[in-house]
């Protein structure tokens, strides 16, 4: 009986903690412009970026510096909102954490090879695309795989939260081959699985894949389904989303974005 009442007590405490957190949030984030003002008051823009995608967002293991196209875009947005390109605070995100970190306010926006889809637009604000890529496939040189037509019965390793699975499935259906998908949490894990022969193909967006190329592997020429990357912010931060969009559009129009893409030697 004692044990039971302790259990009930425990449940009450948990419920109180949960609702406590829950009722805090809406009051903070209600109203569009106040969010933008909150960032201005704080004086720093918190940005979620990748740290394992060379040329987009990559942490140099020697210097500890995070650099890439997406970091430069973050700087441009900070300049637009705060007037200073250096007022950014970078946080490493993965495909799995970038959504939750936006929701709980740990980051203001994600610039993290985040592909725009209709389904995702229901949960978050996506900006105009700043980059377009296609899904590519990496195989071992010894596998003899030349194109999607050779993939009958093969296993394809893809990243969780990546859109490559859907587009590859469509391409495989068209080519009339049966494939199986295995999903992993991070890109290095897929590479490990490829090396171990657990998967026959490592497939993510081409630009990401290029960072994992080595002597034993080759990237096939096929590209599938255009993937458009957007800057992502919380659904109810409309003022922030507008400011981001303005910044991106401006960068597109004045050629700054093209210059950055060239600077990083992408495509």
């Amino acid at each position, binding site marked *: 009986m004692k044990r039971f009442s302790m259990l009930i007590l425990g449940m009450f405490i948990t419920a109180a903690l949960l609702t406590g957190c829950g009722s805090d*949030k809406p009051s903070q984030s209600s109203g569009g412009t106040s969010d933008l003002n909150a960032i201005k008051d704080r004086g720093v823009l918190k940005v979620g970026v990748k740290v394992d995608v060379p040329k987009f967002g990559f942490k140099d293991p020697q210097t500890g510096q995070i650099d890439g196209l997406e970091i430069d875009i973050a700087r441009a947005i900070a300049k637009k909102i705060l007037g200073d390109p250096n007022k950014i605070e970078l946080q490493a995100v993965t495909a799995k954490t970038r959504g939750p970190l936006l929701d709980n306010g740990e980051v203001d926006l994600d610039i993290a090879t985040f592909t725009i889809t209709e389904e995702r637009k229901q*949960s978050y604000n996506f900006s105009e695309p700043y980059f377009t890529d296609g899904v590519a496939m990496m195989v071992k040189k010894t596998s003899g795989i030349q194109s999607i037509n050779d993939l009958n019965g093969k296993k394809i390793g893809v990243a969780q*939260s990546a859109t490559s*699975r859907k587009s590859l499935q469509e391409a495989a259906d068209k080519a009339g081959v049966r494939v199986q998908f295995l999903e*992993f*949490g991070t890109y290095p*894990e897929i590479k490990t699985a490829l090396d*171990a*022969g657990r998967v026959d193909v490592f497939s993510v967006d081409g630009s990401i894949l290029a960072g994992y190329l080595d002597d034993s592997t080759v990237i096939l020429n096929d590209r599938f389904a255009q993937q458009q990357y957007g800057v992502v912010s919380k659904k109810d931060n409309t003022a922030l989303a507008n400011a981001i969009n303005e910044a991106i559009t401006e960068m597109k129009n004045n050629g700054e974005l093209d210059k950055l893409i060239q600077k990083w030697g992408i495509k």
Partner: protein
Amino acid sequence: MSGPFAGFKWLALIRDWSVFAEGFAYTIAVSLLALLLALILGVLFGVLGTSQWKLGRNINRIYVEFMQNTPLVIQIFFLYHGLPHLGIVLPVFSVGVLGVGIYHGAYMSEAVRAGIQAIHRGQLEAAYSQGFKYQDAMRHIILPQAKRMALPPLTNQVVSLIKNTSVLAMVAGGELMYQADSWASTSLYYGPAYIVTGLLYLIICLPLALYASRLERRMEVRA
């Protein structure tokens, strides 16, 4: 309404319920086979750990200490990513059954060993005096009594075992946690996904845990 727990996200989950059902069934299948393996290993190594045969006791120690003092995740990674480099490619289902089964076998063997050692040595001596051989005394006299002692900790191990099958999510295991991760990260509707997944684990583990504490209480009265 937006936010991680928006209504339309729950509706999407209900529409895709079969993804979670598939993972749930897979988790139960892996758990049952891993449990069977763990029980066999547990009794085998538990008995070995109490034997007068020194080598047997040493084998028990090596197995138990090695499995208990390395993370399950590393053991699973070794089976999944490591063995293929040695030319052994186990299907992921077997990786789950073997990995989780062998890991929990170590814990179960400790429970079995404790159960056997809790039986007064007079029982074994009495059995010998009646002409029982060691194996027969174990089987008919000691183990049935030890079973009562070991059952509550063993049941708790079953709960851990079921929850630990979730590490398979890291190697594309196809079980409940993997399916939840996969669904949540594609749609980004992680709120409902992980709540439902947590509840699914709860409905198998909670009854077992309650059963274990009832067994424990019953023992307290008798002792």
